[in-house]
């Protein structure tokens, strides 16, 4: 019988419901796993053990009284930029040292209402700016499959702790790929919902028109479960959609009969590493075997996605991060001479260099004389990118692509050249620009035993389609059953999911 920490959310819930133990046992085991593995992986910035056990005991008491939440007593790790009342929320930045959330994000409140526990603040790139979690102000997170490699980013801590069974599941956020990339590099499932599907209230904003909260999980069913609970209109978020929330778990079927899956040619280029390309091709064949029809499609605006993404994201971020000034909360430098001095020195000391780089870039593209040439133009290109997707989704139900051109690269490999780093988003950023949905599901390993993720892209509010495709593929393969321990490949013994 698998240990508590090796279970999925639905597996743990079933075991709790069955009476085979209490939440206190589950959380206790999980904390033990964290103590054992996190010193090497460094996926967590903070784990409040006493609070975790208190939450577990409260859940157990509620269960005894007949409490019925869908996740009652089940813990989730939280990326450090989501507000959970009473917890610290530093966004992996010195700028928010001392800040404790006075309120719950709406998504958190909805999970809390279903009895979920919030255990551990997961490491991330500072203010979600990065693709490897190397931009965290506090610590590097190591990929559990090879401790010398990156876990991806910016939700790298979330991906690593799920992959290492230091969490049953985690929440991350995705602005240009920040859930899907770590999912791919760490070998777990990562979902970016349609823009507006999940409320952003309480999610520290990076790029307002691109951000979405997304789950990182051990299987598709868990992702569907978390999406189900969090999705839906929120009065506190004017950009949240009033579109009705379907039953996502009902869409999980084991075949792909009747599904048309498109392969955008711009995503199958020479720049993709051969072993990654191989895994993707195998996955495509596999989908055909499950009944899907494969069609070739084209997304001609793809080459412009990165530039468009960085212009818009940095512009919005430059304004969103202006509030971090030491006046009302967080870090403030001492002995400032006047407000301007305080702002300058606080922000100089509080922000890391990538954050500063993006704020300056963002201010530049919005500045007088450049606004039309950069920001306005980028918004126009964005509309064309979206039109590209509208067109292809008339020819197919979903797209299959790689998540990234490579598997996890070495720590420090790309840090010298920020632009090189930006290219990690090349297959993921268009999805955010178009506001549509996508997920990453494990589809193989390289010869170095590094995970490779298959990206399934769907139209706006097409989560049912991509979850169905992901589920059918996942259930007919074994990738999720391969586990890592101390970065070494474990003998492939069959485990109960």
């Amino acid at each position: 019988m698998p240990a508590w920490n090796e279970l999925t959310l639905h597996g743990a819930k079933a075991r709790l419901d069955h009476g085979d133990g209490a939440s206190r046992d589950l959380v206790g085991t999980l904390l033990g796993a964290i103590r054992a593995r996190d010193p090497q992986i460094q996926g967590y910035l903070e784990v409040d053990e006493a609070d975790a056990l208190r939450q577990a005991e409260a859940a157990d008491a509620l269960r005894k009284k007949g409490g019925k939440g869908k996740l009652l007593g089940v813990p989730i790790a939280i990326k450090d930029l989501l507000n959970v009342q009473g917890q610290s929320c530093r966004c992996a930045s010195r700028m928010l040292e001392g800040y404790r959330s006075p309120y719950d994000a709406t998504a958190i409140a909805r999970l809390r209402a279903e009895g979920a526990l919030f255990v551990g603040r997961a490491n991330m790139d500072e203010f979600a700016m990065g693709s490897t979690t190397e931009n965290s102000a506090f610590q590097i997170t190591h990929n559990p499959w090879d401790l010398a490699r990156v876990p991806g980013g910016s939700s790298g801590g979330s991906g690593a702790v799920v992959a290492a069974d230091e969490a049953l599941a985690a929440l991350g956020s995705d602005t240009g790929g920040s859930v899907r990339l770590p999912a791919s590099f760490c070998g777990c499932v990562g979902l970016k919902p349609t823009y507006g599907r999940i409320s952003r209230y309480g999610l520290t904003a990076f790029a307002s028109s691109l951000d979405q909260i997304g789950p990182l999980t051990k299987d598709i069913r868990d992702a569907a479960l978390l999406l189900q609970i969090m999705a839906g209109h929120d009065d506190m978020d004017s950009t949240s959609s009033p579109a009705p929330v379907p039953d996502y778990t009902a869409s999980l079927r084991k075949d792909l009969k009747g599904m048309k899956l498109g392969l955008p040619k711009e995503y199958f280029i020479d720049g993709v590493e051969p072993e990654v390309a191989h895994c993707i091709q195998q996955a495509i064949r596999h989908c055909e075997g499950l009944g899907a029809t494969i069609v070739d499609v084209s997304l001609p605006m793809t080459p412009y996605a990165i530039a468009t993404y960085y212009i818009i994201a940095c512009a919005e971020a430059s304004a969103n991060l202006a509030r971090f000034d030491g006046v009302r909360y967080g870090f403030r430098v001492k002995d400032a001479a006047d407000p301007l001095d305080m702002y300058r020195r606080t922000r100089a000391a509080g922000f890391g260099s990538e954050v500063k780089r993006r704020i300056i870039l963002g201010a530049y593209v919005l500045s007088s004389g450049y606004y039309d040439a950069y920001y306005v133009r980028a918004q126009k290109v964005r509309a064309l990118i979206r039109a590209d997707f509208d067109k292809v989704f008339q020819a197919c139900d979903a797209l299959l692509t790689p998540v990234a051109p490579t598997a996890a690269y070495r720590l420090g490999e790309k840090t010298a050249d920020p632009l090189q780093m930006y290219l990690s988003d090349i297959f993921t950023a268009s999805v955010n620009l178009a506001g549509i949905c996508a997920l990453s599901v494990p589809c193989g390993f390289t010869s170095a035993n590094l995970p490779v993720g298959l990206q399934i892209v769907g139209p706006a509010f097409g989560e049912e389609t991509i979850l169905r495709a992901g589920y059918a593929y996942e259930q007919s393969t074994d990738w999720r059953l391969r586990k890592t321990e101390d970065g070494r490949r474990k003998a492939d013994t069959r485990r109960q999911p």
Partner: protein
Amino acid sequence: MNYLTTIGLEVHVQLQTRTKMFCACRTDFGAAPNTQVCPVCLGYPGALPVINQEAIRLTVMTGLMVGSRINPWSKFDRKNYFYPDMPKNYQITQFDQPLCIGGAVEIDCRGQTRSVRLTRIHLEEDVAKNMHIRDQSRVDFNRAGHPLMEIVTEPDMHSPEEAFAFLLAPKQILVYGLISPCNLEEGNLRCDVNCSVRPEGQTTLGTKTEIKNMNTFKGVHQALTHEIQRQVAALAAGESIVQETRRFDSDRGVTESMRTKEDAHDYRYFPDPDLMPVTLTDEQIEAWKSMLPELPRQRCERLEREYALPAYDAKVLSADKYVADFFEEAARGAANPKTVSNWIMTEMMRLLAEKELEIRQAKITPRALAGLIGLLESHAINSAGAKTIFAVLFEKGGDPAELVGQLGLAQVSDTGALEAWVRQAVEGNPKSVSDYRSGKEAAFKFLMGQIMRFSKGKANPQIVQDLLKKQLGV
């Protein structure tokens, strides 16, 4: 050399909504510092704005009242700059697609009525309040996020007097429309001015300066007067005017440079991605149009018509919505509206001015005034008594009929008592009697005065007059 002045104004009006522009915090005046705040108006990480629909309605209503074109599609933008009173270090405002475009406000200045065109009216959020105490600066965020309606005029004013008149005009409209209480003490209304001068004969406008920090209407007048003098003196001395923002120092009555165009902020405006555009259908705008209250001018005309008042009376009464309200309610209970109007324009206005009060603060009710006038017209009291009672009602309230008894002001009309006093006066003042008989009118008045004195002011003067004339054999 004669110089012509051009002035434009930007007036910021705090709207009368229960909650703030983008969050559910209350807007009540006078709360303890930083008690009407939340993650949204404090700019906490993860907080998001949500539009206050009532603020939209009030702004559109204002636009309809001044004849603006209502923009069916408008949006909010971020205006980016850093300052301690800015919770997010950007202000959510409307840059290039405001709610209302154009419109005009009529002003009365130096006996003439003129029209001042408006450029636009838009919505934005207010900033927090900075306070400097000894060597500390403190910020109260209660005000941060309060809805502000900004009215921008074309440069249609040509003197500080016209600018002053303009500030009074929208106050009238806004109070009438229940848009804003426009109470200066509570900070409901603030304004910035732009002004330039040019020599007579020159058609192009001179370089303009912007003046900020005038906290009173008088300050606006002062600042403009000083700035115009400064600009004229500079031009006359051959200097050029620098386009800049100047700060009005109310203690010294002068303007001083704050920042020049070179230091001017680049606000890097861009559409706020957290908010949807505001779309207004024709149906919605028509529905709000039908809710428009009666405006000062309309009320003035109606008062003239319905109550058969002279134009002058109607104008005075309708200048203040609450005075007009008082008048109409009192007139309903009185036989003659003109009498009510007279009492308001004389006794009421006099006491209000003396005590620096607004009519709603006076304790006298419209019903009481009507009652008082009734007592006078039925000769239960005389006019001196009525004035006395009015003053008491104003100060303390109450019922006029009861006060007549309490103060012993019942008019004496009993001919017996009156004849006795008349005889007393005539017999006691033989010289006055002969003076009167030899043609001195003043002697009659003297005798009347004596009789009123004997009666402690309560004698019915009409009857006394008749009795006196009879006794004098006239």
